[in-house]
């Protein structure tokens, strides 16, 4: 369970549904883009989660997170891939993030560089996400850095990780979730949920194992705004599996974006009702307006001030 006392930790422990949204940094060096994106997001989100090169090379997550703070966002969560940083860079950037008053680090392995990002690149893969979670927690709780160095101060950060509801067999899935929790994850963001039955099966197994009591589970919804992009995401699996039926429903609809919002909102409503769900994270493919649209339609008004 959460060990820190920042506002995001308080929100996770508040008992109400936490609502967060994704921020994809720009593909260029345009600082105004972040300011504009932030202004278009609802002001009462519990946190904004900055992605770390999930699909292509974008501006750095630490820079975008810092710009969001400058924009007055209270809780900013910064994703960091173990793909692009060795343990030296992971520790160093995490300390830097804490100095910038970033609330949490989302520890991810990252999509493989060969899938649409940069196939020629060598990946760091020095630590994996579980080792990164564990190392961060060691820094936060004990002021201990990797390689035995003592830190001059303990960073105040929450630690997030990803969960993969559709990974089977379930036994392997739960082993992995348990490991992330034991390593020190305070919250788990999931892949995008479309197949609600598959998600429910997983959540039931998680609840049965008592894991929802040990970690805050925040499933993701993804309003599809662009059918071509959705087909790409279905093919490369950046945010998890997208069933053909979802693509077909958007395809048949007179207004694809509206249908995408409708689908994501229906899913958010169902997720909200499930015991063990502590929040909803809204992906948005750079379209900030989708976040407010889903919140309104699903009736999941956040109570934060991020």
């Amino acid at each position, binding site marked *: 369970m959460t060990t820190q006392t920042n506002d995001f930790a308080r929100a996770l422990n508040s008992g109400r549904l936490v609502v967060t949204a994704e921020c994809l940094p720009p593909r260029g060096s345009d600082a105004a883009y972040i300011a504009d994106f932030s202004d278009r997001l609802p002001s009462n989100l519990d946190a904004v989660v900055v992605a770390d090169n999930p699909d292509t090379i974008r501006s750095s997550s630490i820079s975008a997170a810092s710009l969001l703070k400058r924009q007055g966002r209270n809780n900013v969560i910064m994703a960091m891939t173990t793909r692009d940083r060795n343990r030296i860079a992971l520790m160093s950037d995490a300390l830097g993030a804490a100095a910038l008053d970033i609330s949490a680090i989302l520890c991810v392995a990252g999509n*493989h560089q060969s899938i649409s990002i940069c196939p020629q690149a060598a990946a760091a893969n020095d630590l994996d996400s579980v080792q990164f979670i*564990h190392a961060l927690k060691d820094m936060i709780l004990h002021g201990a850095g990797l390689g035995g160095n003592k830190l001059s101060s303990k960073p105040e950060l929450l630690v997030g990780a990803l969960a993969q509801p559709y990974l089977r067999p379930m036994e392997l899935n739960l082993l992995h979730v348990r*490991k992330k929790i*034991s390593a020190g994850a305070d919250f788990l963001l999931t892949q995008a949920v479309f197949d609600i039955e598959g998600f429910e099966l997983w959540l039931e197994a998680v609840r049965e194992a008592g894991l929802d009591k040990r970690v805050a589970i925040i499933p993701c919804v993804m309003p599809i705004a662009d059918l071509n992009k959705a087909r790409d995401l279905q093919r490369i699996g950046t945010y998890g599996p997208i069933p053909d039926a979802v693509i077909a429903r958007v395809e048949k609809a007179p207004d694809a974006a509206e249908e995408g919002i409708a689908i994501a909102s229906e899913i958010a409503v169902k997720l909200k009702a499930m015991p063990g769900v502590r929040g909803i994270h809204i992906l948005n493919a750079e379209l900030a307006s989708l976040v407010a649209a889903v919140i309104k339609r699903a009736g999941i008004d956040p109570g934060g001030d991020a």
Partner: protein
Amino acid sequence: MIVASPKSITELKDIISAHKNVLFVGCGTCVSVCLAGGEREVGIASYAVRMARKLDRNPVEISQITIERQCDNEFLKELAEPISKVEAVVSFACGAGVQAIAERFPEKPVYAALNTEFLGVLEEQAIWNEKCLGCGNCVLAQFGGICPVTRCAKRLLNGPCGGSTEDHCEVNPDRPCAWQLIYKRLKSIGQLDRLEEIVMPKDWSTAWYSGPRKIVRKEHQV
């Protein structure tokens, strides 16, 4: 074994385009077994390059020899005489063999005819798979004899990524997910509890990251 694959005849022809008299040297060990650089392959490549150069109106004389192992000084001795008669050498060994010849014959240009690929096994006729990265600190005992360092595309040591399916790896649909294999294997040998433990960060100092490695085994020195 070390698995290699041949460079194309066009590339090979271009690499030696400035030379008129070249020795093609095969290696009788790993690369013979993986059908890339043995006597047979050297013969075929010599013929093909000779023909290609003829068509380019730039004929070349190619002689051939295949020795037991190019990575072993003992066998390299046999090359002294044939190498003295040519302008350049094309080695059909792995990268280690090519460099062994270059060191042994400092006055001769030496070129590689193969792309050295990996440490692997022959899975079925004409199909080789990579199994070992040579990290210098074997962890196979923990993972039921399946190496996640080599066989997981993200080198994950604590479980599968979000792209894992029971059928394949997200990076390549022709490849099984190493973590699904590890899970099945540990389950079948009754060691699934190994997956409960967090595997701590690997010490990569035994791998290539500290630079090229050297082994001295004092007990075997004379």
